């Protein structure tokens, strides 16, 4: 059962008696939802100075006494078994402390797959280094510890392996012959049928029916995956680079057969996550080797190691077919396709999610399939599904607009749904067309010629394209927040969440300060450590609202505790928690602010050094009740060389509707970062996996291209800033939506420039010659 399914079950429990969340109908609206003070302000990141001074200590930099350095050996076949492995030369090499293979590894339980249990972090459920079986080309098959990294890197090359190869599925084209339907897609059904979409398509006055292809892409955060770890008896401490400390801790405890409280994970700074920094083999084998050798271990994956042992965005082939009446109204919307996966993970790449709610088509057909391959387990990578799903869907919309001679924005306007077309739920807040209107005006969309190839400067064709961005609202169940108030008037807000550069710590300090009525410098936000109350994972763009909901819950509990402590001698005597609000470093009566007392006064009178309250947020029922999504309109201008087919993005604007924006500065950076990653997706990112061997041939940033500065124009970002009445603080997540729609906006601009439709990513110049 997935976390989301569990949340759905909780809905039932709530219906029979639990107090609903305050942002559900009937709840008291959060007064901070509309308050402008610290919330929304462009506060600079609190971790900024530490990072630019090099004083923020990352996982690979933590010093330890007697540290050993690890190196991995990766398999060079895709499937089969290790017939023989000779480690003698490696063991004899200078500085080598220990070599671990399946022959001498301690017995370990397989990782529990993420989403199958509330705190599971596993990205694959294969046993790790427990047998001779090979499941993908690049699988770690030995780990070596040495006194220096250089010794380890050299010695690991001395290990000799003889394989018995078995037939492997390493070619996506061949794998499509045998596909299967996944059990579910992140808790959602793999297929949806509303009416007879195929029949409606055949009858439609206008039709588009096309196949779109997207390649495998690898995670390339600047910070390499790293863990520095040590055992003390049966207690394991890991300084990890992860976006899920609580989950890694719980899962490692299961793997090693110890209690959850015997594992401590610390991850105060993460140099980029994007979905890739979860639990992979490297942490597990490093901890196992440390346990056997009795030495602390530093494991830093090489860039090649990241490519070989950490999955990425998987390969897809998608069909989008649209049928429309002559007035532009969609009668048929079909989005089907196949994603590559493995039999040992559960990450079906939800590319059909956007088509489930974006357009009010009469008849809808959605169906996703899986092609099992012998590859590294694919995983979540910034807007998994939505990034490439919007490429297919939003290119198809552009193709339909072209076929009907309607402006692409107008076509979307005519198909704007009144409620969710597949679930039937009301939208919590949907202002997509407003985002389009604002974006179009600012970008100068009216200057676009509807005729492809109409604008040219010298050898450069110039074109404009647009596409819808969308990403679901998620709020993770589980996790809690503790707020401590001290006698000197400070607040410490604690929960084991993550700062991967998004601005989490800054934004939550802003929020907590505003909620507590304290200046920001009196508030400390503690995170990234399993010694703190359990935190939600940084995934699904959910962390901000998950933490915000936790702070609200803890604050409610804190107010009750403070009123109790204040007692009958306080001006607040007799008031219930609902009747008071935070103000000027204390509590005040909502209706009569003259009745107030400061936190310092309450604590001093009670003779207390501090007061603390911890609470978990109510389950995310709002997402069951409403169709909750963020939206955006992506505008792109490209220049395409008529001679070489080179594409240069000359202008870009993202106009977003993501509820209330909590920090204008960090939000702008998140949006821009997503768009830049989207430019890479559109134009260059592609894992070159040799279809014969399943081996990744470009495991380096020299040959795996991501955008460089010269590929990135000025990017303008704007937002509606309309609070979502049904989410904590009126906010929805913003970390992933920036990448969605970008692929289509670029492809549509290329079409407008050249008259050439490229339906296969990335749009490299050879496809335009």
């Amino acid at each position: 059962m997935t976390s989301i399914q569990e949340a759905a079950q909780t809905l039932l429990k709530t219906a029979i008696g639990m107090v609903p969340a305050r942002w559900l109908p009937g709840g008291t609206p959060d007064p901070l939802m509309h308050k402008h003070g610290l919330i929304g302000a462009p506060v600079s990141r609190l971790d900024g100075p530490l990072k630019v001074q090099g004083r923020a200590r990352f996982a690979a930099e933590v010093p330890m006494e007697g540290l050993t350095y690890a190196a991995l050996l990766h398999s060079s076949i895709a499937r089969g078994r290790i017939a023989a492995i000779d480690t003698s030369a490696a063991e004899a090499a200078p500085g080598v402390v220990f070599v671990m293979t399946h022959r001498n590894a301690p017995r370990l339980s397989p990782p529990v797959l993420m989403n199958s249990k509330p705190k599971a972090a596993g990205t694959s459920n294969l046993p790790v280094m427990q047998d001779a079986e090979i499941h993908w080309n690049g699988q770690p098959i030995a780990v070596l510890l040495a006194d220096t990294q250089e010794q380890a890197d050299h010695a690991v090359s001395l290990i000799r392996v003889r394989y018995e190869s078995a037939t492997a599925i390493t070619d996506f084209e061949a794998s499509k012959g045998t596909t299967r339907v996944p059990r579910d897609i992140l808790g959602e059904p793999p297929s949806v049928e509303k009416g007879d979409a195929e029949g409606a398509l055949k009858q439609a006055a206008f039709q588009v029916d096309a196949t779109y292809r997207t390649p495998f892409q690898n995670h390339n955060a600047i910070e390499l995956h790293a863990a520095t770890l040590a055992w003390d008896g049966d207690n394991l401490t890991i300084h990890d680079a992860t976006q899920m400390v609580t989950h890694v801790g719980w899962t490692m405890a299961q793997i090693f057969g110890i209690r959850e409280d015997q594992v401590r994970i610390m991850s105060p700074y993460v140099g980029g996550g994007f979905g890739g920094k979860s639990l992979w083999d490297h942490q597990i084998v490093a901890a196992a080797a440390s346990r056997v050798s009795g030495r602390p271990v530093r494991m830093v994956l090489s860039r090649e190691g990241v490519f070989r042992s950490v999955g990425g965005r998987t390969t897809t082939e998608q069909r989008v077919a649209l049928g429309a009446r002559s007035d532009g109204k969609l009668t048929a919307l079909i989005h089907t396709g196949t994603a590559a996966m493995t039999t040992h993970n559960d990450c079906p790449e939800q590319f059909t999610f956007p088509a489930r709610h974006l357009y009010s088509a009469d008849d809808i057909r959605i169906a996703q399939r899986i092609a099992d391959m012998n590859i590294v387990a694919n995983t979540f990578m910034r807007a998994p599904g939505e990034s490439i799903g919007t490429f297919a869907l939003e290119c198809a919309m552009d193709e339909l607009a072209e076929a009907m001679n309607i402006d692409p924005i107008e076509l979307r306007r005519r198909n704007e749904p009144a409620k969710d077309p597949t679930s039937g739920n009301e939208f919590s807040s949907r202002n997509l067309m407003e985002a389009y209107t604002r974006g179009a005006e600012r970008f100068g969309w009216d200057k676009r010629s509807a005729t492809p190839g109409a604008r040219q400067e010298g050898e450069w064709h110039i074109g404009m394209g647009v596409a819808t961005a969308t990403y679901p609202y998620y709020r993770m169940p589980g996790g809690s927040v503790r707020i401590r108030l001290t006698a000197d008037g400070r607040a410490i807000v604690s929960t084991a969440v993550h700062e991967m550069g998004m601005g989490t710590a800054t934004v939550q300090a802003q929020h907590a300060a505003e909620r507590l009525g304290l200046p920001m410098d009196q508030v400390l936000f503690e995170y990234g450590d399993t010694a703190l109350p359990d935190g939600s994972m940084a995934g699904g763009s959910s962390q901000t609202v998950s933490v915000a909901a936790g702070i609200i819950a803890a604050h409610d509990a804190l107010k009750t505790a403070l009123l109790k402590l204040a007692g009958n001698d306080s001006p607040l005597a007799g008031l219930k928690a609902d009747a008071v609000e935070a103000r000027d470093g204390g509590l005040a009566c909502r209706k009569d602010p003259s009745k107030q007392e400061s936190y310092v006064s309450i604590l001093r009178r009670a003779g207390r050094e501090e007061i603390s309250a911890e609470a978990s947020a109510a389950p995310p029922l709002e997402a069951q009740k409403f169709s909750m999504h963020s939206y955006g309109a992506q505008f792109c201008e490209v220049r395409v060389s008529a001679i070489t087919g080179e594409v240069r993005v000359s202008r870009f604007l993202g106009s977003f509707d993501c509820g209330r924006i909590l920090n204008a500065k960090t939000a702008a950076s998140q949006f821009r970062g997503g768009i830049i990653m989207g430019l890479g997706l559109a134009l260059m990112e592609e894992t070159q996996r040799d279809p014969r061997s399943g081996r990744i041939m470009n495991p380096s940033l020299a040959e795996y291209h991501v955008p460089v500065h010269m590929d990135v124009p000025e990017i303008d970002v704007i937002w509606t800033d309309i609070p979502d009445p049904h989410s904590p603080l009126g906010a929805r997540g913003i970390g992933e939506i920036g990448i969605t729609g970008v692929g289509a906006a670029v492809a549509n601009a290329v079409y407008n420039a050249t008259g050439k439709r490229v339906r296969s990513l990335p749009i490299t110049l050879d496809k335009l010659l």
Partner: protein
Amino acid sequence: MTPFTYARPADPAAAIRASADASQARYLGGGTNLVDLMRERVERPKTLLDVTRFSHAIEARADGGLMIGAAATNTAVAADRTVRERFPLLSRAILAGASGQIRNMATMAGNILQRTRCTYFYDEASRCNKREPGTGCDAIDGINRIHAILGASPSCVATHPSDMCVALAALDAIVHVEGPDGARSIPLVELHRLPGGHPDIDTVLRPHELITAVELPALPFARRAAYRKVRDRASYAFALVSVAAMLDVDGGRVRDVRIALGGVAHKPWRAFAAEAALRGQPATEASFAEAAAAELAEAAGLRDNAFKIELARRVIVATLYDLAGDAA
């Protein structure tokens, strides 16, 4: 990286002696390619002889030529006033390559001797006749979008990745070397080999020979030059196709021309056939197209790289057309 010893000989003669005395020695320039290859275990020298302190002088000759010390960094050469005045092609080609940081380290000789970017050459688990002679070539039927369309062999379809060398080929550069048997000079266009049956041997350099300088002979029309590099992103990517060209037009006719191509062959490719086809012809797009066709007559594509033939044709024509326009 396989352990090695590091030494810094005092002068070229000492370096050559040290190389001859040591087993498996390599000369070390900026290390931007060699050290990478050592990390990848493609190169496993036992001795590194650091030659970065040898001549890095850039000497202008009275006859209009130039002598550049082998240890001059790419950044220094690209920025040099005389280079920019007399041979702007060289400066432009260098600046089209790598990144600022890499160019700061990379040397003249190191750039010339950099090895292919073929991904199968870099991967120990793949078969590669260049890395391990006789094992076969996984690139020929593999992922070969970046591979050669000219001069390839059944043993190897790798390309030479340098931008700078494309300019040097067009400029008739002469490479000065010293070795155990004395000094000699080699035209750059003859320094790099085609793969044939021995793709493991990149150049005609003999064992222990050390590049000491690169000479650029005077070329009166070198100022009318263009370097056009086509790649998969705007910066920091190797050329899919690049064209270096210099054009001398007189009365609407091509009096003289130099053309070289990058990204297309196992060596920087001097387009002699195109040049011959153009001399004396009208400086028109039609002539340029005929010249390009002559040069590419023997070009052959693999699974993924056939587009380069058309791309090379277009870029040759466009580059010459632009130069002719400048002349008019």
